[in-house]
């Protein structure tokens, strides 16, 4: 009897030992540590892709060979699901990506150190103006703490076209709604799809198409509605949804639009060379590169790919009011330093180099996936090989200039609820089996949205 009890007791003791014994000691970092030249750190992000991050790190190591940086990439949703538990457990990364969208600065800012002093030390007291327009401001939390420093910006509101398909079909890049329909007829005639888009699932990518169409209808409408100065079921909003519906009915938007998200659906379809156009933001510029386009095509399932020529093009004037879409953009992501990290000193060196040094930002510019956040840095074209330099380079240079000049924000001033409601409305409009009227859909959208107070007044 006693023996049994002992056995059982031992078992319980073992379990409780295990429970307490495995407790991790959350490292308590020193936010005021001076940047160090050696150390080891981890960096987590949903972007950039691992090969790009490795290029960044390699370049960083040429100047700071004694800081070892390990990058871990996550898919968008996984990043959110993984980061919070990790930070809570004290086992989080030393450096992590932080996006300006959907209250991220508040959600994760409390885990990060205030990097304003670091910026001031590196760039001087007017540091904020050294970054792209309001990039720094977009990475502050509601208490005004600078929770991350911008690594790069991005813009959207234009489309990418596969020039090879258009040439084969004898079609031109569309400029308004009717020419878009004509182009699509020619493209479908040679067995390709016209505009690929992935609006399924819960991802918020489709909101960029909404934003582009809305800008064609009225360039001020999107931000007004997002911040409560207009309603989503105002005539402008209804017109946007009507254009959406028509684009599908007229064969502009491919019929598999609701099969999945923009990634992988639209990306793979475009990269495979199955579709003539896709709406993607500035980050797509990277696939103009001769090597990166090959990798991307292979990942989309093409064996021994030959790159096609992809070009950025203005968003067509779909509303017939004489304008396409004004570009909208903002900081893509910033780098935040975990306040509990034991490696804050090394992390500061890394973040400062990445976001505020000429060399670090030159890397960002050369990767062609982001607009460098530090002003005055442009890609070093001598080191870049495009699939077709002569055709692509001038257009990309123009794209960079126009994107940098953007004044309208992308998701920074829209709440998560608003973006989610927009996605649902788009899905309802594009789904041929939904019998609701556009007015009802827009009313539902308005009802589920939540006004943002960010950047107002």
């Amino acid at each position, binding site marked *: 009897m006693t023996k049994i009890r002992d056995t059982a007791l031992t078992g319980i003791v073992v379990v409780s030992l295990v429970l307490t014994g495995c407790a991790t000691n959350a490292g308590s970092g020193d936010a005021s540590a001076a940047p160090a030249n050696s150390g080891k750190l*981890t960096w987590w992000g949903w972007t950039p*892709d691992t090969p790009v991050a490795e290029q960044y790190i390699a370049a960083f190591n040429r100047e700071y060979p004694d800081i070892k940086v390990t990058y871990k990439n996550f898919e968008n949703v*996984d990043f959110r699901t993984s980061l919070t538990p990790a930070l809570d457990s004290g086992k989080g990364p030393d450096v992590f990506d932080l996006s300006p969208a959907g209250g991220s600065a508040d959600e994760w800012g409390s885990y990060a150190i205030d990097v304003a002093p670091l910026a001031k030390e590196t760039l001087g007291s007017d540091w904020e103006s050294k970054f792209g327009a309001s990039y720094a401001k977009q990475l502050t939390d509601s208490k005004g703490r600078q929770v991350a420093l911008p690594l790069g910006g991005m813009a959207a509101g234009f489309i990418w076209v596969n020039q090879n398909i258009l040439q084969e079909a004898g079609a031109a890049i569309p400029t308004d709604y009717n020419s878009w329909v004509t182009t699509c007829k020619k493209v479908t005639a040679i067995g390709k799809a016209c505009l690929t888009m992935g609006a399924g699932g819960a991802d918020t990518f489709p909101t960029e198409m909404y934003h582009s169409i809305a800008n064609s209808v009225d360039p001020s409408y999107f931000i007004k509605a997002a911040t409560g100065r207009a309603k989503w079921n105002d005539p402008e909003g209804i017109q946007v949804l009507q254009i959406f519906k028509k684009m599908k009915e007229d064969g502009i938007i491919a019929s598999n639009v609701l099969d999945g998200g923009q*990634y992988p659906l639209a990306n793979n379809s475009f990269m495979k060379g199955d579709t003539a156009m896709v709406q993607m933001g500035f980050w797509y510029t990277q696939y103009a590169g001769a090597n990166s386009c090959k990798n991307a095509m292979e990942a989309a*399932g*093409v064996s021994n790919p030959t790159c096609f020529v992809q070009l950025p093009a203005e968003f067509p004037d779909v509303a017939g009011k004489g304008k396409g879409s004004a570009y909208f953009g903002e900081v893509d992501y910033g780098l935040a330093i975990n306040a509990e990290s034991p490696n804050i000193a090394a992390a500061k060196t890394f973040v400062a180099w990445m976001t505020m040094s000429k060399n670090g930002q030159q890397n960002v510019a050369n990767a062609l996936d982001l607009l460098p956040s530090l002003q005055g840095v442009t890609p070093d074209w001598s080191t870049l090989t495009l699939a077709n330099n002569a055709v692509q380079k001038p257009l990309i240079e123009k794209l960079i200039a126009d994107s940098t000049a953007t004044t309208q924000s992308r998701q920074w001033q829209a709440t998560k609820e608003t973006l989610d409601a927009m996605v649902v409305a788009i899905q309802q409009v594009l789904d041929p089996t939904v019998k609701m009227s556009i007015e009802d859909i827009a009313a539902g959208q308005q009802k589920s949205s939540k006004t943002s107070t960010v950047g107002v007044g």
Partner: protein
Amino acid sequence: MFETRSLRARLFLQFGVTIAAVPFLIPIYTMVSRSFAGGGWGNYAAVIGVPGFLQFFLNSAIVAGGSIILIYLATMTAAFGFSKLRVWRKEVLFWMMMVALTLPEIVLIAPLYATAVQLGLLGTFWSVILPIAALQIPFTVLITRGYVDGIPDTLFEAARLDGAGTFRVFWSILVPLSRSMAVALIVLVLINAWNSYLLPKVFLSSDDMGVVTLLPDFFRRQYNDDIPKILAAAVVTAIPTIVTYVALQKHFERGMAAGAIR
């Protein structure tokens, strides 16, 4: 079961079963054939080349092994206690345990998350093994109790009259006699632990703690969802469970028949 004396009837049955089995093959066929798109065998090379590829399998093995040991010990002792020993308010305790049968793991996420943070268990294998065990034990105890009930009391009484202590009775009678049940338990827990997706996804976030079900996620990225490689990863992770099932199929069915359908 079916009488198929004539050749025609046999052919008819064979044909019918074949047709009915085809839909089961479609997704499998799709998965395998599309896993070769683009890079061909290179996709598989890429999967195997994932940094820490073996670590994924090792981690799954740790989770599965830990769950099996914990569940096996807890189940056997509890089934013994419920079936053959004197316990105050035994049936009340038993029912309390059975209520837990209805609990989905998704419900555990929020509370466990907060608790794991407090106990510092986040990012340790315990944060996955303990919930798996907690969810499995009610089921395994229920079947195993049924099985142990079927072992005649006289065997235990005889041993006790010979002066054997309870532990000895457990060790030298119950454990050997319930081997086929044990195999069924192990297969069930192994497959379930190996296939667990949500718990590891939320609780094992650190780099070197990925489990095999998270392997396809490795190719799911912001800028390239590499579907052929995702499918190749899926094929690679599915193989161990299929092999396990095929290898232990006979034992498994025997255990089910003995424990569940007496």
